[in-house]
């Protein structure tokens, strides 16, 4: 079985986002970038399936500029077998990424696609679903547990009411939630090996996909600053305050 994992290069989750003064976007100069954490979880799951002997090979793909090869190397060091970069410096919008991935799926013919449930930079949470639509494949989103058996994937997904159990037939698209697993630490010798592995590069022309923008970012703004908190002396005071605010009656 072949697994395809799609990853995105995003600002590291520990770094506080800074908005450009003209509101045109987020500052990236000198900022630590990482694999989107949910994508890393998806990759970890793929590697575990391979380690259990349930998959033969894992390909990671990213649609991005050359800098994202740093994240592809990280993925190779974790345990992916092949890395593929679709070169573009354009804005990454879900429908376009889904179209590129559709073309990659046609080329690579994977049996299972693992993706993060959303990217932490734009929080879109659309690409896996759109890709499922384009391919007309079954999908299971926000997956927190996954088992493979007899051409089916059995998953638990976190929904408002609790856990939902689903079985989807392969080939399928799964999007990973936080609790699916805890990604491994990469090992130094594996980082060295990953630096020597090739990365395949494709252009949009190679895939005959055009990335017509469907969305336009009008303005980026930081959230309003939090109002400073206050220390109250007693429960009574808290109750009086809450009543004054109209929260309690």
């Amino acid at each position, binding site marked *: 079985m072949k697994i395809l994992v799609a990853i995105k290069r995003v600002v590291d989750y*520990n770094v506080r986002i*800074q908005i450009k*003064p003209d509101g045109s976007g987020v500052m990236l100069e000198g900022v630590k970038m990482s694999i989107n954490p949910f994508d890393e979880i998806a990759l970890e799951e793929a590697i575990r399936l391979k380690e259990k002997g349930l998959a033969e090979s894992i390909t990671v793909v990213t649609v991005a500029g050359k800098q994202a090869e740093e994240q592809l190397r990280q993925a190779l060091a974790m345990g992916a077998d092949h890395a593929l970069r679709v070169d573009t410096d354009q804005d990454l919008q879900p429908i376009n990424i889904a179209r590129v991935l559709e073309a990659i799926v046609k080329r690579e013919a994977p049996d299972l696609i693992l993706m993060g449930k959303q990217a932490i930079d734009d929080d879109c949470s659309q690409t896996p679903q759109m890709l499922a639509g384009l391919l007309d494949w079954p999908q299971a989103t926000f997956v927190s547990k996954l088992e493979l058996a007899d051409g089916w994937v059995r998953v638990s997904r976190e929904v408002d009411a609790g856990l939902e159990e689903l079985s989807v037939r392969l080939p399928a698209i799964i999007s990973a939630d936080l609790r699916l697993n805890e990604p491994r*630490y990469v090992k130094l010798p594996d980082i060295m090996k990953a630096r020597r592995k090739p990365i395949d590069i494709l252009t949009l022309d190679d895939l005959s996909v055009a990335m017509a923008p469907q969305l336009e970012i009008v303005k980026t703004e930081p959230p309003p600053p939090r109002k400073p908190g206050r220390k109250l002396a007693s429960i009574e005071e808290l109750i009086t305050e809450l009543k004054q605010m109209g929260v309690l009656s």
Partner: protein
Amino acid sequence: MAERDILNFDVAIVGAGPAGLAAACRLGQLTRESGREMSICVLEKGAEVGAHSLSGALLDPVALTGLFPDWEKRDPPPMTPVTQEEVHFFANQSRRLKIPPWLVPRPLHNQGCYIISLGRLCQWLALQAESFGVEIFPGFAAAEVHYDAEGNVAGVITGDVGLDRDGNPKDNFQPGVLIEAKYTLFAEGCRGHLGKELVERFQLGWNNASNDESGDEARQQDRFQCDPPHYGLGFKELWRIDPAKFHPGKVLHTWGWPLDAHTEGGGFLYHWLDNLVSLGFVVGLGYENPYLNPYQEFQRWKTHPQIRGLLQGAERLGYGARALNKGGWQSIPKTVFPGGLLIGCEAGFLDNARLKGIHTAMQTGVLAAEAVAEAFAANGRNDEVTGFERRWRSSWVADALYRTRNFGPALNRWGAYVGGMYSWLEQNILAGKVPWTIHNKTPDHARLKPAAQFEPIEYSGADGKVSFDILSSVYLSNTNHREDQPCHLKLKDPAIPVEKCLPLYDEPAQRYCPANVYEIVQEPEGPRFQINFQNCVHCKACDIKDPFQNIIWTPPEGGDGPRYVNM
């Protein structure tokens, strides 16, 4: 349990600061020139190169130009030449005195320097080093020195990862990797935890009559009397200010208020680029009053009208802190021992009078690289690279440090006013050529006086505009440590903070830590010493200033700690 991996390199470098990276670049150049293969790796505890770098910073380009004469053509990191400089004496919270240039001690002049971000410089140096085939591993801390059977340094061991709070391995546990090397360069910067161990083990520094190979009598005399290392704690913030007030290349240094004449320190403010201003404050860690709160002094400094005016309507983007060396010439230990070398601030190579250590860090890295390459070419391994001592002692680094050697001790001995006047006289009139050397034999931690001799200092609260509470500052350092791991701040004796340090010194860790890591929590059973290690910004102040030398800083899981941006 999983087996420890072993990797072999000819040269291992600990720390991707300017010292370690300049050494890596020079080794790369020499390998390319000689055609003889040499494998080189650099370990860095930060999640990426530059993530733990914090500096002013004014760069004296002398070492950079020596290393890469064509650096300007190599797409250098963002830099702004110094165009205008001022030194001010803050008399009190509203008055200031502009010092005429002729009265400024000569080392404080900065013509020809550039305003930079050290993090960005390191990222650029890392790219150059990688182009020579150097392997750089960010996210891996060197946790232990590896000694061979004869007791020579033979590499380092990286930290284990995936331990829980009690030190038990979790599912994803990975033991540290043994990096075996013929020569190991220690470039951890100020107060390196491995460097500290090496200085003790090989008796390289203070209280140790080490041999000096240079012929100079006066210098030799000094070596036998190596002073303890001295330190300052440097704070820094990055601000984006009103474009109308921004003057690229303008540099301001201040001394005086809010510190009293007994406490060393001062402020800096550099107009970098894109309306970004780097500003900060250094407090000498030899201070005596345990109630002094360096963080609050820094916040207070920003409320001086001259600084506040500039920050009106501005946005604070970054915060951080890092210790720096102040001992200078008198405190430099012997830098070589079997199998290893100390370079940059690991050995204390910082020109205190100029508050500059990047150029000396880079140059000692370059000289160490040349000495190691020579030893390597002679098929040496795990021996003492004496060539490095010889090289740096006859270099401009030694001249610069020797010339300004009395600056720090004079301030320390006579305070900011008389000491400052002395330095002006020595540097501007006597051109640094005096035959005597002033010493400071008391380590910083031993200078603290009992709390009973002082009144607690009242600091006014943060205004949320130019001064801030400490937690909202720590937030801007982007620091993080995985919670479920052993605390990396070790206490030799867990009872000391509450039983001894609290009654005697009112536990100063509550105040000197720039990240609110240490707290005394009042419980019904009595006071408890709490360590919020997740907040740590790796400044090393606790390791330096704890009066009982009971707090030991060790590296947490690799990649944890601050994620400084443009600092």
